[in-house]
């Protein structure tokens, strides 16, 4: 796009700004628009689970404009701040939360190469930035001058910091299988049928996926781990004192994070934009068949990943409206006594499986031949780096050559 804009005679910096703005606005829309849809979906799902109808009138049918109406109400609401609050921190906190949630989307791919910024430490970046969301919560809890808020903040801090450990372990397993932290490559390594998903790579990855689900739900503070805002204990926890737009920023951050961890789960374990059936390939599209075909492939992938991530969010809603809330000590026990050891054992298991049975449960079954590439392991006999879509910049710095020299790592993961 930048090249196109420059080609129109725009100076480079304008072109770059426009390109950046387009990307930023698109990502912002994913969060804001996603939040609107998910809030509506949550209301409908909750209602259906509870034998109710939920919103029915706003916007004609199904109350589909309900969250927009809510948004307008929130905009018009009086913005209150408690008297003893630390004004600066109180005002800042929702934006900190929201920014963290938003920033993490930068590195999340929505389809092959459809990513804000492709980082070769993508997974790491997403997990790291996601952990920053807790700052907004802590600040909100501290600045609100309310004891309930402080309780919520402390719970959130303890919970999120603890759950980062097993979450990190879970995330490392697909990284290990793919041999890279680049989310785009990880997704692309699972191309083909459902059997090539890392979820079905071996029994350990299957189990660790569920550990990931648990930790992800906990780290985005959804029931049954929504201790920070436990309404029956802490009134509303860290956002007790918030109202109006600031409160809705917390809400958007929450829904953004839900979508993010679901998207991350989809990319890491559920094939990303691939599978369960390689629709694009069956339809005869592939990256090699021209510009418009690549376009279609990406659109299909986008829909695929969005669908999976949405399913993940819906799953979280489902359990939220089904299960009671755990107690804080039980939440910590779940993390430290169950999730962490299980994740550690599964990590070791997946490691040994990868060592001895590197093909997974379904070696090569239904996987497109020659499409999975891993630049730095291919060696000199592999495809030339420039022709490989699954790797870009990494190949220019580390070719296969050094491995030849050291005599290491000639084993391909396949």
């Amino acid at each position, binding site marked *: 796009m930048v090249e196109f804009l420059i080609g129109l005679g725009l100076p480079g910096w304008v072109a770059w700004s426009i390109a950046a703005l387009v990307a930023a606005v698109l990502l912002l829309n994913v969060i804001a628009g996603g939040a609107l849809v998910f809030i509506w979906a949550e209301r409908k799902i*909750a209602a259906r*689970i*509870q*034998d*109710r109808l939920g919103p029915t009138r706003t916007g004609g049918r199904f109350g589909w404009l309900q969250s927009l109406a809510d948004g307008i109400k929130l905009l018009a609401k009086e913005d209150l701040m408690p008297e003893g609050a630390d004004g600066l921190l109180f005002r800042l906190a929702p934006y900190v939360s929201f920014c963290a949630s938003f920033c993490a989307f930068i590195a999340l791919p929505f389809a092959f190469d459809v990513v804000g910024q492709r980082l070769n430490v993508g997974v790491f970046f997403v997990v790291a930035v996601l952990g920053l969301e807790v700052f907004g919560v802590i600040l909100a809890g501290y600045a609100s001058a309310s*004891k*309930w808020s402080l*309780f919520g903040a*402390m*719970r959130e801090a303890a919970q999120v910091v603890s759950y980062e450990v097993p979450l990190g372990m879970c995330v490392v397993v697909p990284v290990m299988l793919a041999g890279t932290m680049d989310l785009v490559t990880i997704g692309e390594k699972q191309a083909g049928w459902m059997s090539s998903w890392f979820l079905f790579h071996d029994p350990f990855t299957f189990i660790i996926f569920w550990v990931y689900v648990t930790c992800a739900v906990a780290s985005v503070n959804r*029931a*049954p781990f*929504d*201790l920070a805002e*436990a*309404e*029956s*204990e*802490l*009134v509303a926890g860290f956002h007790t004192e918030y109202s109006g737009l600031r409160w809705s920023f917390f809400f958007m951050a929450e829904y953004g994070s839900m979508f993010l961890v679901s998207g991350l789960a989809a990319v890491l374990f559920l094939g990303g934009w691939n599978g369960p059936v390689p629709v694009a390939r069956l339809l005869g599209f592939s990256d090699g068949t021209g510009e418009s075909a690549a376009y279609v492939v990406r659109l299909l992938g986008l829909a695929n990943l969005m669908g999976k991530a949405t399913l993940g969010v819906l799953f979280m809603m489902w359990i939220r*409206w*089904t*299960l*009671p*809330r*755990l*107690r*804080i*000590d*039980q939440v910590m026990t779940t993390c430290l006594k169950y999730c962490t050891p299980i994740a550690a054992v599964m990590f070791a298991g997946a490691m040994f499986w990868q060592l001895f049975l590197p093909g997974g449960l379904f070696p090569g079954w239904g996987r497109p031949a020659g499409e999975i590439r891993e630049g730095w392991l291919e060696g000199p006999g592999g495809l030339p780096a420039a022709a490989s879509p699954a790797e870009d910049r990494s190949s220019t710095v580390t070719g296969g050559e050094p491995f030849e020299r050291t005599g290491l790592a000639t084993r391909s993961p396949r």
Partner: protein
Amino acid sequence: MPDLIEDDPRIIEFDVRTDEMLVNMGPQHPSTHGVLRLVLRTDGEIVSETEPHIGYLHRCAEKIGENLTPRQWIPYTDRLDYLAAMNMNLGWALTVEKLMRHEVGEKARHLRVLIAELNRISSHLVGMGAYGLDLGTFSPFLYAFRERERILDLFEEACGARLTYSYITVGGATADLPPGWLQRCEAFLDQFEPIIKEYHALLTTNAIFVKRTAGIGVLSRAMAIDYGCSGPVLRGSGVDQDLRRDGESLYTGMYDGYAFEVAVQKEGRYPRDHSYPTVPSEAVLGDCWHRFFVRMLEVVQSMDLVRQAIDRYAACPEPLPEPLKLFEKLPVGDAYLETEAPKGQMGFYVVGNGTSIPWRVRARSSSFSNLSVTHELCRGCLIADVPAIVGSLDIVMGEIDR
């Protein structure tokens, strides 16, 4: 009862010096069931002291009762335990009848059993649903309300009101049941019976629910008796007492010929437990789980009683007696009667002085005594346990503050 003070790992002091905090839970708090205010002294998440403050809903109900005739005061009894207004009506009506030595007929007796037990179901449904809410799950609350709505529909048909019925009154009931009511009631029971399994799946046997309730807030048998607890709270501690069986003859006479088993754990097992979830191994007699479970058992027990009452009521050919006159003179003397309301033993005291307006009226509510154990149960628990414990006591502020 295990010695929780010494061995509970949650109340051991940590090396990190922390400060105590005084927190007001309520009167505007989502899980204090109305306008209860609990002042918690907490050390981090650990509650070292809980002090209930009551009186936010005081309406001088008893004093008003000393300026109205007993039948005029019936609507005020509705507002005591507003979730079980029929049982409140019944308690007051029976007390006044005791003072006046008035006997209602067979038909009124069965009608009262029928209505009171139906209201017990609806009250326990609210207690169960709200308890789920206290533990952070919303859906069972609405499931419970779904069934309660049907009971309220039945009551509405009978008396025109959905919450404050003023139906059972001194000398009988304000009106007879409308035609077809009994069939609709039976239809409801038939539809309701299998649904109870769902409640057990969602709450009673749910792993998280068990974790949150089993072993929490253990009320020992002796303490329950000491504090004058009653109802499911008392029976949840294993005390085999139910005024429907053990009360004054005037009251137990109402249940003459009815077959029911008191829902209490005897020799390690509950009655009817063959068809019910087994007690989880973590549960200790007298904890929140048992109190909850006793309520669930009482729902079934009440359904049984309602079925029996329907048969007996339908078998009574005579018409329902007219209630006493509004300004019927009260004899000189006093009467005190306790009945088994859903929340526990509801006592009314009335002193007559020969006029139609009683000289003194007093009420003794079960929730009041049940609430008084909170500071014992909540000592050393976590903040999240406070709603769990208070919720399991199933209090209604209307009858505490009166």
